[in-house]
């Protein structure tokens, strides 16, 4: 079982099915802040829900309002269970930092190299631990 050591941007532990964004997305204009669904009709994963997933974000794109959408997702309980970022970004993780300040339930954000991100199987159940280790969970949850 391969364990990937990521760099913890925001500490926490979580488990969920991997959802790998196949194309960069701007959360603002791309994700509904209440339901957590991808609402950009040009996005190949249009209609998918990011809520409860371990969301792999290879690279960021677009609006600086994405931190605000992240905050609302946390407030609404529609946020991903964890975010794995190919490249650290001042926009998305900030929404999680602010959510923590406001006392909302927080989620781990871990920087994982793009090649490590690519090593996970689509749909696999992924666990993130408090030390920033990321691995595929085998067997029943």
């Amino acid at each position, binding site marked *: 079982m391969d364990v990937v050591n990521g760099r913890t*941007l*925001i500490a926490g532990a979580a488990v969920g099915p991997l959802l790998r964004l196949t194309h*960069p997305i*701007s959360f*603002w*204009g*791309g994700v509904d*802040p*209440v339901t957590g669904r991808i*609402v*950009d*009709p*040009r996005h190949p994963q249009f209609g998918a829900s990011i809520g409860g997933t371990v969301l792999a974000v290879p*690279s*960021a*794109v*677009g*609006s*600086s*309002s*994405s*931190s*605000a*959408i992240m*905050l*609302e997702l*946390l*407030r*609404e309980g529609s946020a991903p269970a964890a975010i794995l970022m190919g*490249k*650290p*970004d*001042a*926009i*998305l*993780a*900030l*929404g999680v*930092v*602010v*959510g923590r*300040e*406001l006392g*909302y339930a927080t989620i781990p*954000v871990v920087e994982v190299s793009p090649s490590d991100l690519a090593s996970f199987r689509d749909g696999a159940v992924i666990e993130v631990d408090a030390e920033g280790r990321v691995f595929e969970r085998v067997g029943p949850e």
Partner: protein
Amino acid sequence: MAMRIVVSAAELLGAPRMVEIVSAHIDGCLHHGDGGVEFAERLVAGGGRVAVPTTLNVGALDLLHPDKIRANEHKRDMARRQMDAYVAMGASPTFTCAPYQVGHEPGVGEQVAWGESNAIAFVNSVLGARTERYGDFLDACCALTARAPLYGLHRTENRRATVVVDARAVPAGLASRDVFYPVLGTWLGLAVGQEIAAIEGLPPGVTRDQMKAMGAAAASTGAVALFHVVGVTPEAPTLEAATGGIEADRRIVLTAADLEGALRRLSTAADSDRVDAVAVGSPHFSIAEFEELRRVLGDRRVGIPFYVCTARETFRELEQKGHATPLIEAGVDIVVDTCVVVTPILPARGGVLMTNSGKFAHYGPSNTGYEVLYGSLEDCVDSAIAGRAVRNEAVWTW
């Protein structure tokens, strides 16, 4: 709380220390949900005051013309509270995505913390001041603390172009037209993502409005925060200056097919001639763009809803010149403090929205439910008069 958030940001970005900033532009007064109001009011309650000159981005309301927005009482109330909270912190109530058009222009090399993706691209690329891509909340925290993490585009070594775009084959006739720039920007964002490009071959007379339109489109399809235009932008007097004398990682020759693909992507309703409404002004219309609209419109009157989004200060200037009333009498709906893709202004029945803005074309479908059709300002005006799509395709002959 503000300092704690700036420090957290610095840590997660791996910034070694802070840099002092001279201005901020806060993209946090737009209501996306009540969390944003809670955050802003928490700062006000803690006695938060901006420590540097600070401008505000669009909100979800047109405070001068409140009836233009369709929103329920709760949303209207929360949107208002969010805008008021930032004014209470001492920020200037500019409520525009283009603060650089209303007298807020940092100088070359100045360190700033700006939010709003088009403003970030403009302040870095066209003005040569230095900001990272700040998201909502961090921009406000930087404004309150006068500090930003010393990271990314704040540092000289991270501002050099790593991709060279050779646009020398673009016909001069096309490169002189406004309609070219949002398409170029759309392509650029898709082609370079987060990389910094130096574009060769654009005419030295490229206007600020053209650069603004290009940057806004590039920052919509990619995470473009800085681009150089050789011979035009302050950090790119020459290609060597733009690349820092280091060989670029890659070189892309812009082709007619590239542009055609980007042009196609900007319209989701190109196969019918239906147009139900027109919206321009993303980024917010400048005085020069209003003058161009007046020229194109002449003494004609539009027959379908036609929105122009702008800053209240630009609107005031337009009124002082006596140019607002004739436009309004010609059927033009001038929206201030906000715009049609961030809050419900367009008629609820939906349909096809025509625009000359790459940013509106990009965000229109997901944010408004409208299909979009991209065209020049002339196309938009002609279509609004005809009540159906009129597009001059000949300009794209290459």
